[in-house]
């Protein structure tokens, strides 16, 4: 019964794509959020995990065009979630208005420095290589 439910969740290509993109977003967001809130930049190890996730997600999707479109959606959603998470606890209850603005600016710089430009290029390449390998071998 449980196996049937699991099979139903991934029974069609669209459902598989939906689950892969949800997990992909959760994975990338987690890697970058953990790095951001610990030291405000991602180490090579963390970038490696992000690239590995992109490779695996691309292989699971197994279609270059779909991988490309999904990757763009995933990276945009990840950035939006990271911005939301980082500014959410900022409040004038704790800091002045100027302070909130200064910290917001620093956090935005940290997020963009963490993801752009090389990590995003390497992740995109990994997902495309993964999807090409998925198409051909898996």
């Amino acid at each position, binding site marked *: 019964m449980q196996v049937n439910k699991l099979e139903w969740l991934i029974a069609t290509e669209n459902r598989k794509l939906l689950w892969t993109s949800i*997990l992909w977003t*959760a*994975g990338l*967001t*987690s*890697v970058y*959020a*953990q790095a*951001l*809130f*610990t*030291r*405000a*930049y991602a180490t090579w190890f963390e970038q490696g*995990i992000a690239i*590995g*996730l992109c490779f*695996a*997600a691309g*292989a*699971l999707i197994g279609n270059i065009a779909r991988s490309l479109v999904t990757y763009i959606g995933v990276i945009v959603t990840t950035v939006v979630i990271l911005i939301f*998470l*980082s500014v*959410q*606890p*900022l*409040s004038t*209850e*704790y*800091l*002045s208005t*100027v*302070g909130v603005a*200064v*910290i917001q*600016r*620093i956090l935005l*710089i*940290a997020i963009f420095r963490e993801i752009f430009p090389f990590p995003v290029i390497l992740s995109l390449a990994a997902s495309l290589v993964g999807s090409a390998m998925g198409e051909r*071998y*898996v």
Partner: protein
Amino acid sequence: MQSASTAWKITTIQALAVVFVAVIAVEVGVATSSTANYFQFYKALAEMQVRLALEVGPLQGDQSANSNVTAVFSIENPTGYGSMIMRALGANFRVVNSTNDNQIQGSTGLDAGSPPTALNPNVVENVTINFHMLLPAANYKFLFTVTLDLSTFLDTLSLLQSSFSCDTSQSQGCTLVSITPRSIGLPGGGGGL
């Protein structure tokens, strides 16, 4: 041959999917912990508590009216935030005679007192500063401005300093005056918070 190939394909996809889900599950767990900690960061900055215990007495073995001043600053992070380090503490002090308004001023420099200390939740860290005054201590009140140089997760972009004002004529603890970021390699710098 065809069915063996199909079986291999399913196994590879399933194995990849299992690894994919497992890595994400671990990452989500780690990130949730970091994010929950981060959500208390600003509260920790704003609610940091500094208290001052001051002992003023005559300088031992000194027949003149010189005084020995021992200031013990107690720093406490009353929140659950667990990744803040006090890199250094410094104090500017002003000693005012309440009868004739005579003043003396001084500064300890920012490295006075202690080595870098983790400001763990609800743990009080004490920093002691000693100095001598070439004056008798009677009728003087002490005004300290304490600066904490903080090491936080933002260290690669901005160093944070918290300043507190401590007035010995008032019984309550020190008051937070400002939180100032010193930007590192960012255009425009930063202002007081």
